[in-house]
């Protein structure tokens, strides 16, 4: 079912940055291609987004990694400090653990 059929706003059409409200739309994409959209303020700490995403996918926030432009996101980062633009993407990676011989 598409977004339009579900009644959800699509990224290109309905979810627009609200002028004057200083909010942007951010897409969080997992390594398996699942997408979650966020509409947050430029000043909102991304740790909140991370926590909400982890809660949504049912994982511990410490077991997943969030990267913007290939760089890990810090707890104190905000869209403004990272110069994020509307409809930017945050990549999500699963924690990797290992040893060696």
């Amino acid at each position, binding site marked *: 079912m598409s*977004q339009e059929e*579900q009644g*959800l*706003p699509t990224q290109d059409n309905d*979810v627009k940055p609200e002028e004057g409200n200083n*909010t942007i739309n951010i897409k969080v*994409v997992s*390594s398996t*291609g*699942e*997408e*979650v*959209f*966020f*509409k*947050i*303020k430029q000043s*909102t700490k991304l740790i*909140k*987004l991370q*926590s*909400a*995403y982890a809660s*949504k996918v049912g994982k511990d926030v410490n077991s997943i*990694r969030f*990267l*913007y*432009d*290939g760089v*890990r*996101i*810090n*707890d104190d980062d905000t869209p403004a400090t990272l110069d994020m633009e509307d409809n930017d*993407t945050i*990549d999500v*990676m699963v*924690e*990797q*653990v*290992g*040893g*060696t*011989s």
Partner: protein
Amino acid sequence: MDDYIIDEEDLQHGNPAWNPSEWIACGRDYKDLPTYVAVEVERTRRMPLEIESLLPSLLQSPAGFHMQSNVSAWNPVYDAAKEEISDLTDITFDSMEPAFITADLMEVSLLRSSTVQHLHKDFGQAFLDGKRSIWDARDTNNIHFFRLWYLSYAEYARQAALSWHTWDKAMAWMMEHHHNEEPEECIWRDRTFALLASMAGWSGRVGCGFIDLTFEQLAAILGDNWLSDTVVDALVQDISTHLKTCDGASSDILFADTFFATSISGGAATDSDHMGYSLVAKYTHLLTSSSPPHSLSFPLHSPPVHWAGCRIDIPKARIQFGDSLRKRHPKALADQLVVWLEKNIGLKNIQVTDDLPALTAVSLLPMRLHTPSSEMISGSLATRARTDTGGKLDTDMPFIDLDVPTDARVHPAVIDVKMRDVCQPAAFEETDLTALLKSFEDEDTDTAARTPSAPKKRMREHAGDEGVPTEKRKKSTHPTASTRSEPHTKPVVKDNLKGPPTAKRDTSLMAPPKCSPLSRRPNIPYDVQQEIKDSVRKGGQSDSAKHDHVVGILIKWSLY
């Protein structure tokens, strides 16, 4: 595709507007909490100074924290155990007046995480209901009525106790090697102890550019522990920084993080693939710049729990995988790498091999984490330590030394590879490969003609008769062939390597007038010889690749 939209308001926990009927906290963050309420919350939760002084300062060094803290009684296993019903009934809020500050607070059993969270959630409402103490009846002979600040205390003490056990494990691992008096070990040990005594902090985020790295994860480096991508990436970052700082030539080496391989495997080879391409794009940009690096090296996660390495030699259009477990390279990743290199970097006729020596500076990254990685602790972290300790730290910090031979410790959960007979380090040139293999064939014949040999332990006792060195091999100060630019140093031929003057050995020794691999070749165990022979028999490798592979095997067995 799962589409889901979360608004700004959804990011707030519960009711973002303060509700007086719910009083304070209740597990929610109110964006408009009145000042007088915030002050009351702070006052209620603040520990008295005399209690706070019992707990270790967050600015204490790991060594000081480990030695001076009195939080060792906590068993971290308890924290992971399933919460019992009694935890919820024996520890709760009560209307009784709290007792005076008890002096033996440290002897009270700590609370597990779930219990602390449970109490925090109910704290505000309990306060509103006139509850003035926390009733702890876990010990029926000694029931406590704590003041409400006990919540803050319990949370802090629990974290300190968990962290203490982590550092205790690391310190114990360090002390295991205290008997090792080899100069390199001593130098490393002294420096590491000094750093652990000078860093500021023992828990929480390390900072200094290591975004996710915590002090507890840092402690995991000191020991045979599973290592997360955060630690591996931090080490790669630290090594890369030091190479750029200390070795100008090494700017030819570009390091990628652990997510690079994951992204490539996931199909992020081209911009059109989009998904995860942003993780790859920066490396594409660097490798296509006007002065591109000669190689791209990155750690490689091999599920479920293993780290390997990979190096892409750009001028030679060669992808080299290296794995200490000698696994073949993951084909899907190799295929995607080829696509990425062809489409983005413009390479042609790309060769994929598994001959990256597993202990080189690149693929050794995970392995080195099992060794005392002083370079990890001594780099940027040392800078922090200097800053935080008023510059008392020695400015001649140990920078990375990739040439130092490492002790290849084995994680018991992965595979139990024992180091075999130790012997003098070997070194041979590419042209020596044939002669070395020839010597194995000769030795096969020799071995077949002899009676079965005694057990290795007993052989070592009579090493003088068998040609095996009697002393434990000293760590070489020579650089390994697999590391950077320094030239090979020919090992000194020791008399005890020549062995008894048997006819067969005499033949092999007298052959070349110059220093041949046979004359300086150590006594290589039979099974290692077989592994080398099996490796070169596979074919399809150039002499150079075979040479590298043999070097890798020798390094793996600590024979190089």
